[in-house]
Each structure stands twice: as structure tokens, then as C-alpha cells.
């Protein structure tokens, strides 16, 4: 299809709360919970941040690295499950902020944690068919966890944006393959503040089933083998699931680690696999191959096969601040009280 990634941008908010601090408030064993999830801390947006501001920050970096005139972007799609408005697109806010409006199409995508990769696929289709020259696909979430719910330890925040096009790709997307079923493992009803989940049911029939089927399906479709890849990135609701998914598909752990960002920022939902991919693109060399599988509850997985091109060596092709610096650079630790204030978990706020 000769469609690929022209540029990318990532955003992680600056504040962090440690799993042990959350456990302290609920009088649970913090060290045990942290080790069980493989998450030591998570990224938290400030009181004046939401999934739209995250998306804009990531998108602006992607547009800058692309070097293209934003007026040439024909579609802006934002995937999120924490939209600031239930009705009113985030995509138009982003499109306006990057200077892509008004001669373009825009929409928000919702598919739990895989809405961002669904947006990438939509852009691939529109670019591939010649409907548009460039598409901007974003996954962004300020993940929401009910106080004292297991999800509270993992629900982080962040965004990743990708410009999809044909000319000057930093990575070609050779193929994509999806696997979707109606599986109610995690959901949030229209007026509910926090999502609900089916506990352990979220593992085998949900995450692992879909990730493995999509991954296997893609390998069969393009007659590839895990040995053909230098990196593998999986949706990462915690630090453990992606390592087990890799094992099930036959990818060794060392190919997964560069794309594993959840242990230090939490599950960034729609952004998770896309931030993992950004972390890989930060260091990948021309000719290297990347395997990516997202997962969204409800449920589905999108798998992608990519090959990095010479274009990635061009000056300015990568964002000036790498994902590892967003994760480990300037950050500020907050306690549960500040976290409650910034995420507006106190109902009287």
C-alpha cells in the first residue's frame, strides 16, 4: 500500500504518583501491588490538562518533525476514552491548534485502549486510496480510575500523534491486521464517572485472546516470523501483560523492553501502544523492523508490521525530546491529596 509514518510526537504529563502512595491511602500493601502490576508510578495530568491538551502537545511535535504544511493534513482523528466533551469532537480542537483547519475532515474515535491505532488505520486507508495526502492520528487519554479500584494504580495519562502519508516516510507500514469480537471486559456507561471492568476476565478471553489472534493473523498474512523483527510493542495495561503476550507469540523479552513504557507512567490507554512505538522509533535504525499490537476492551486488537527507512536519519525527523526523557526527565512527585485535587476526584470540586 506504500503508506507509512511521516513523523510522530509524544506527550507525558509532568506529575507522578507512586503506586505505594496510592496503596498507603487505602491501607494496602504497596510494594506487593506495585510488583504484581509491574508499575512503580504513573503520570498524572495537571488541573488544567485533559486529553485534548495532551493531544495538541503531541500533535504539534509531530507536525514540527514532519516539516509539512499543516494545511496539507486532510484528516485529523483522535482516539480517546476520556474525551473532555461527551458530544463535541476533540479532533477539531487539535486541528485548529495545529493549523490544519478548515479544509479537512475530523472525528473522534472510541474503542477503549485501541482507539488510537484505529485512527492510524483510518488514516492509512484514506492516504492509500488517495482521498487525502496526509492524515493525523492521535491516541490520548487522561485515564480514569475509580478511587480504591485496582485500576487506580495503573490508570496513567499521555498522548502520541502520528502523521500518516506516502512521501518521506520514516517507517513504512507494510501491513495491518485486526481481530475484533463483542467481549464486555471493560466499559463505562454514558453518565458514569469511572469505567467498570470484569476483573480477571480481562486477561485470557480478552487481552491475550485478541492480541495473540491479531498478532498471529498478521504474521500469517505477510508470511513473517517473530525472528524477522527487531522490536515488538504491545498494548500495556500493566508491566506484565505485554511480556506474556510476547512469549505467547514467540518474541523474546529483549525485543519488548524498549517499547514498554507503562512501568513508569502507567497505562496511558489509547496512547499506550503508540507511546511504546514512539519509544522504539526514538532509537530504531534504518532497515529495522517493528511489530505492534494494540488492544482495546470491548474488544479488539490491531496489529501492524513496520520497517524503518533511511529518512529517520534526517536531521529533525525525531522529536527533540525523546520518550525516555519524557518519562524520566523533569517530573514532580505528588501525594494522594494533590492527585485528588488535580484529577478532580473530590466531588465537591
Amino acid at each position, binding site marked *: 500500500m506504500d503508506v507509512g509514518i511521516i513523523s510522530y510526537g509524544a506527550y507525558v504529563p*509532568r506529575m507522578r504518583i507512586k503506586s505505594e502512595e496510592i496503596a498507603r491511602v487505602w491501607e494496602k500493601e504497596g510494594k506487593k501491588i506495585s510488583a504484581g502490576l509491574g508499575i512503580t508510578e504513573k503520570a498524572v495530568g*495537571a*488541573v*488544567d*490538562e*485533559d486529553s*485534548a*491538551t495532551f493531544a*495538541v*502537545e503531541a500533535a*504539534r511535535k509531530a507536525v514540527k518533525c514532519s516539516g509539512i504544511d499543516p494545511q496539507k493534513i486532510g484528516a485529523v482523528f483522535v482516539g480517546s476514552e476520556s474525551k*473532555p*466533551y461527551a458530544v463535541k469532537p476533540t479532533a477539531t*480542537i487539535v486541528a*485548529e*491548534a495545529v*493549523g490544519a483547519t478548515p479544509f479537512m475532515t475530523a472525528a473522534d474515535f472510541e474503542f477503549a485502549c485501541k482507539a488510537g491505532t484505529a485512527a492510524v488505520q483510518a488514516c492509512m486507508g484514506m492516504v492509500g486510496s488517495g482521498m487525502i495526502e496526509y492524515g493525523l492520528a492521535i491516541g490520548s487519554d487522561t485515564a480514569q480510575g475509580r478511587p480504591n479500584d485496582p485500576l487506580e494504580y495503573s490508570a496513567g495519562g499521555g498522548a502520541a500523534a502520528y502523521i500518516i502519508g506516502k512521501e518521506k516516510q520514516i517507517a513504512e507500514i507494510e501491513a495491518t491486521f485486526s481481530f475484533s469480537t463483542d467481549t464486555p471486559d471493560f466499559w463505562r456507561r454514558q453518565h458514569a464517572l469511572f469505567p467498570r471492568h470484569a476483573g480477571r476476565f480481562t486477561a485470557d478471553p480478552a487481552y491475550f485472546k485478541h492480541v495473540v489472534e491479531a498478532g498471529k493473523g498478521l504474521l500469517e498474512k505477510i508470511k513473517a516470523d517473530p525472528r524477522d523483527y527487531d522490536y515488538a510493542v504491545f498494548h500495556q495495561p500493566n508491566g506484565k501483560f505485554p511480556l506474556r503476550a510476547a512469549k505467547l507469540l514467540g518474541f523474546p523479552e529483549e525485543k519488548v523492553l524498549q517499547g514498554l513504557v507503562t512501568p513508569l507512567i502507567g497505562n496511558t490507554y489509547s496512547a499506550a501502544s503508540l507511546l511504546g512505538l514512539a519509544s522504539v522509533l526514538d532509537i530504531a535504525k534504518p532497515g529495522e523492523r517493528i511489530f505492534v499490537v494494540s488492544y482495546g476492551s470491548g474488544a479488539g486488537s490491531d496489529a501492524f508490521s513496520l520497517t524503518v527507512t533511511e529518512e529517520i536519519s534526517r536531521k529533525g525527523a525525531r522529536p527533540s525530546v525523546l520518550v525516555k526523557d519524557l518519562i524520566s526527565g523533569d517530573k*514532580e512527585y505528588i501525594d494522594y491529596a494533590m492527585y485528588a*485535587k488535580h484529577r478532580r476526584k473530590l466531588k465537591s*470540586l
Partner: protein
Amino acid sequence: MNEALPLIWRRIPERYNMLGSKCLNCGTPYFPQRKMCPKCRRKGKIVAEKMPTEGTIYSFTEVHAAPKGFEQETPYFLAMVELSNGVRVLSQVVDSPADKIKIGAPVNMVFRKISEDGEEGVIAYGYKFKVK
């Protein structure tokens, strides 16, 4: 937040992308936008111009008693930022450790929520600054 919806909408180019003006006759940049160059009067020719996204803190204050709509954000820093083209704008400085917020500190523009009209109203977004 008491800003009227039409005003929020009209200010989107100004708040999202710091779209100001420039006089082609004398080269002076203006922000917010102007219809006329006060230096050149009728000889001036005003065009739309994006402001640079970087600058330095010219002066600042820490706000403890905030106006209505910003009570949740206190304490916060309000600064006069001098952009790299010399234009000065009043803005919040966010996401920056207090000891880094000082006169002359380099800042760059970030995109944040400015205000929201309660839980059900519209959200105004726009520029704020962060110490580099």
C-alpha cells in the same frame, strides 16, 4: 468563568496559536491583534502574524487569591512574558518548579485549559507558558 460564548469562539486563533498582527510599513508586531498601527496611522499596513512561541519572564507574581473560576488552581504564577519578538503578554506560568520561575527565565508556549463554564459548559483552551 463569565466569558460569553461568542467571545470564547472569536478568541480561538489568538488563544490557540497566538495569532497577532504586524505592520508591514514599520515592522512592529502586535498581540492581541490590532486593526491599525498606532505608529504609522494611515500609512501602516496591518497583516495577521503568528507570535513566536518562546520568550523570557519579564516579571511575575504568585497568585493566592484568584478571580472567580480560578480558585481551584491557586497558588499559581502569573507572569509578563517577553516573547522573542519583544511583544509582552500576560499569562500563567505552569508546570514549572517554583525555584525556576524567575525574571529572565526562558519559557515556551504550552496548550492548556484556560477556563470552563462549570461541569456542563464550554471549555476555553489556549496558551500558557512553561519554564524550559
